[in-house]
């Protein structure tokens, strides 16, 4: 009988009970005795020299305890926020890596750059006093867009980074690509912008620093996706605190989407300041501050060309991308437009030759780093828009053109020309499932019906593949990662048979407390309520790398499996001892340890009890206890893939685009909890739709002021903006190299959706001759596109 809380069951989430009753514990919910409040003084200029800071008046304001500046941090030898990934340029030179201090010292480089911090008894007092800190700024011209920052004579964001160029990197075989283009029967070309986005996890970032004078231990509670990474980076590089004196806790975290991976200056400031003022120091961002300080995402400007033979077979792909890094290098920024982007440019296609060049540029804007999908949505959007252009130009049906160029399932494992080796995937199957879901063949009739109501209608595809489960440490290291990317787990059976699992993964909405517990329930037949999942506290869990890149189950889950393997081996030894049988004769059946061929059996509970009450253990062969730890370092990336199809209706009078249906077919390998997986897809889809239709981070190109600095101007998708979805997955292409066969599902929706929506929008507008539109397809952009193009009917 299937275990109702085992693998494949839609177990209702265990964490929900506390969230639904208001009993979650997010960082800002925590208050400590004697706690003080930090408010940052931030640069109102995109670029300015700081010539003086006068805090005297602020210090006299009610409740003020301290006003601290970059100079104070310098005196205390506080270091720069480190970058976790090193990229080398084409010429072999290392990327430019200017210092990034938690509080700016002599120059502010974006609107929102921290200039001082006020610590006071209450938050309002700190805010009152922050306005009294007199900062003398000498405003400097700003380099705001990546294109302008690269122009000769552009203002320099960092004096010693000539031309604002962080690196000029490439991947692939340029000569092979040139040769293929020379042979091409048709070349499709496209210029496109992948606009800057603000991640906007609903919980604003917060950090609470504490220092225990008795033990010398620092504690940082923070809104992080990976507390050990923060401990390592902040302890070793910024504050010089050894790991055994630094505890980092990431409690309930209200969404991350990448933006809470990075080590931010505020974390270092509250940790440092707590010792300086001798009291706990808490900082919580207001949303307007989040807009100005959370790392942004995307921001690519690209040119792409696809060479085809006369039958529409792809011969080669050439891509040039300019990636905006913002003012400083955020923790993983350089890896995003390189190893998480260019390596995915093969997509699902057997394009034999690919060459990509990526220039990364400093600008006077908020640092840019991973945002859900991180490089992969940019790759998917580029390829899938380009394929759509190719289909339109060659007149080949867009589904057929894709089918013709898919890497066939029979070719797996498949080595792409851009470094990755796909293990499994049946791309044609995804498409085959998707087409009837959207009644592809019935589109013409629906379009005619829309036309009768004066509306335009379009249908668009995106097929995507992503590299998840990051990452094999040896591969990542070879590509420039300054960290290993394994995951840790400890499975601890208690004497009465309940289990605590300690995981290095971090849940900030993904439901690990349920999914991970299902793994244990399945393996040992333990009731799920007897399994506790512990994460997010460096003082409890083994060194872990946290959650991002859809890695939790593929890497973190695999670590749990590995630890359970060890538990099982140990349990077999104990069972053999208890049942007076040979270890080799012990079999595990339905969670019971059985002597083969007999009815002698023990449950894991029996064994656990004996493990802790080892009255007659042969101690030289068998240690007491049933508590095992494992680290899992993946052998390869995992490759979730799928096919998304979107249908839109456009009101030509207003330009409003409405997504009328959306179907997503995904291959995530094996699925542990379908309910949670579908939820991940839904959320991802709306972030992708958000990029396509609503979201846009806009700076004033001269002043560098953030124009979309609140929800009044940055358009977050709401419930009435999107439809319900049709979501399907299949499990017959499991990952071949991890024990669960899982691929990861966290980012897929976001990766496929933007391209599918935009392809549908352009398809709907094609009757006006529109061939491309940059995201977001806002009503005005759509209306302007219609206006610019003569309607085909009118030309008759």
């Amino acid at each position, binding site marked *: 009988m299937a275990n109702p809380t085992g693998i494949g069951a839609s177990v209702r989430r265990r964490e929900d009970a506390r969230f639904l009753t208001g009993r979650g514990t997010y960082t800002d919910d925590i208050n400590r005795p004697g706690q003080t409040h930090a408010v940052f003084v931030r640069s109102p200029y995109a670029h300015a020299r700081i010539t003086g800071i006068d805090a005297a008046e602020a210090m006299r304001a009610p409740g003020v305890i301290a006003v601290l500046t970059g100079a104070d941090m310098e005196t205390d030898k506080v270091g720069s926020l480190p970058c976790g990934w090193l990229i080398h340029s084409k010429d072999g030179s290392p990327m430019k890596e200017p210092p990034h201090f938690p509080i700016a010292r002599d120059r502010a480089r974006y609107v929102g750059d921290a200039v001082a911090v006020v610590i006071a008894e209450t938050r309002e007092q700190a805010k009152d006093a922050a306005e009294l800190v007199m900062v003398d700024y000498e405003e400097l011209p700003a380099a705001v867009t990546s294109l302008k920052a690269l122009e000769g004579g552009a203002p320099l964001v960092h004096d010693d980074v000539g031309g604002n160029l962080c690196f000029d990197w490439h991947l692939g075989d340029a000569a092979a690509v040139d040769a293929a283009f020379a042979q091409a029967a048709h070349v499709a070309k496209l210029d496109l912008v992948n606009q800057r986005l603000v991640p906007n996890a*609903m919980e604003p970032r917060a950090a609470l620093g504490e220092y225990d004078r008795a033990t010398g231990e620092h504690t940082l509670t923070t809104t992080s996706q990976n507390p050990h990474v923060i401990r390592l980076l902040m302890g070793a590089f910024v504050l010089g605190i050894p790991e055994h004196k630094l505890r980092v806790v990431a409690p309930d975290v209200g969404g991350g989407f990448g933006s809470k991976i990075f080590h931010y200056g505020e974390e270092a400031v509250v940790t440092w300041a707590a010792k300086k003022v001798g009291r706990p120091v808490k900082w919580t961002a207001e*949303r307007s501050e989040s807009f100005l300080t959370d790392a942004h995402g995307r921001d690519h400007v690209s040119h792409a060309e696809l060479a085809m033979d006369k039958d529409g077979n792809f011969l080669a792909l050439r891509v040039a991308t300019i990636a905006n890094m913002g003012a400083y290098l955020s923790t993983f920024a350089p890896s995003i437009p390189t190893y998480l982007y260019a390596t995915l440019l093969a997509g699902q296609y057997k394009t034999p030759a690919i060459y990509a060049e990526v220039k990364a540029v400093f600008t006077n804007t908020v640092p840019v780093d991973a945002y859900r999908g991180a490089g992969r949505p940019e790759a998917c959007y580029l390829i899938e828009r380009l394929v759509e252009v190719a289909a339109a130009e060659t007149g080949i049906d867009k589904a057929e053109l894709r089918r013709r160029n898919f890497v066939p399932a029979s070719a797996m494992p498949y080595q792409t020309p851009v470094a990755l080796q796909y293990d499994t995937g049946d791309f044609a199957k995804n498409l085959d499932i998707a087409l009837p879901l959207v009644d592809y063949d019935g589109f013409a009739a629906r379009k005619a019906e829309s036309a009768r109501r004066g509306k335009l209608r379009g249908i668009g595809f995106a097929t995507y593949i992503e590299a998840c489960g990051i990452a094999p440490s040896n591969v990542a290291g070879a590509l420039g990662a300054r960290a290993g990317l394994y995951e840790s787990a400890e499975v601890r059976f208690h004497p009465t048979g309940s289990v605590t699992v300690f995981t290095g993964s971090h849940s900030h909405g993904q439901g690990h407390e349920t999914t991970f517990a299902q793994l244990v329930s399945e393996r040992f037949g333990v009731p799920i309520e007897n399994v506790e999942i512990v994460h997010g506290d460096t003082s409890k869990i083994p060194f872990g790398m946290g959650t991002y890149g859809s890695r939790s189950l593929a890497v973190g889950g695999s670590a749990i499996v590995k630890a359970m393997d060890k538990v099982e081996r140990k349990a077999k030894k104990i069972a053999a001892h208890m049942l007076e049988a040979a270890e080799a004769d012990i079999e595990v059946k339905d969670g019971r340890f059985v002597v083969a061929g007999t009815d002698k059996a023990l449950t894991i509970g029996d064994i656990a009890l004996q493990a802790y009450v080892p009255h007659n253990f042969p101690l030289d062969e068998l240690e007491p206890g049933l508590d095992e730890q494992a680290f899992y370092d993946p052998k390869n990336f995992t490759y979730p893939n799928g096919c998304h199809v979107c249908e839109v209706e456009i009101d030509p009078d207003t330009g409003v685009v409405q997504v009328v249906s959306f179907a997503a077919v995904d291959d995530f390998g094996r699925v542990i909890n379908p309910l949670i997986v579908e939820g991940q897809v839904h959320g991802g889809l709306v972030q992708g739709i958000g990029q396509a239709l609503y979201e846009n981070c806009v700076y004033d190109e001269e002043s560098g002021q953030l124009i979309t600095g609140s929800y009044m101007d940055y358009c977050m998708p709401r419930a009435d903006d999107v439809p319900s979805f049709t979501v399907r997955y299949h499990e017959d292409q499991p990952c071949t190299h991890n024990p669960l066969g899982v691929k990861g599902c966290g980012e897929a929706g976001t990766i496929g959706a933007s391209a599918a929506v935009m392809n549908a929008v352009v398809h709907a507008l094609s009757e006006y001759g529109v061939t491309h539109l940059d995201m977001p397809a806002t009503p005005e952009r759509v209306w302007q596109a219609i206006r610019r193009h003569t309607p085909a009917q009118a030309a008759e």
Partner: protein
Amino acid sequence: MPCTVSMTVNGKAVSREVEERTLLVTFLRDQLGLTGTHVGCDTSQCGACVVHIDGRSVKSCTMLAAQADGAAVTTIEGLAAADGTLHPMQAAFREHHGLQCGFCTPGMVMSAVDLVTANPSPSEHDVREGLEGNICRCTGYHNIVKAVMAGAEAMQGGTMKAAAE
């Protein structure tokens, strides 16, 4: 200048001396320790702070504690029955996976209850429009909408059952 505000919160009378500029959400979180009500924006849009004042849903970040003086306030902590039984809307959110990170959830549930109280049999369209004051970044709304429709049915069932008793 401090002032005294008194109100009923989740059925209990409370009275505190606060600065006059204290927002209701700050009062609930910092003075009463009811941290289930969250703050997700500063422009009154995200709805993470939604509570009920005399039965109507409002954004507690856009109301002074002093304005709620004398009112009956219900927060997410006051929604479940005294014995811990979840309100049908809370139960529906769990059943239909209408939450992920949980941060928008209290406001979302409080808005949903108000919406369904006013319109006991909402269509999907009604639910989507009715939730426009609440932003969720995790769920894509799909399961929230399902949950609210199921919660609406359960709330009606509950009423009918109670009426039959």
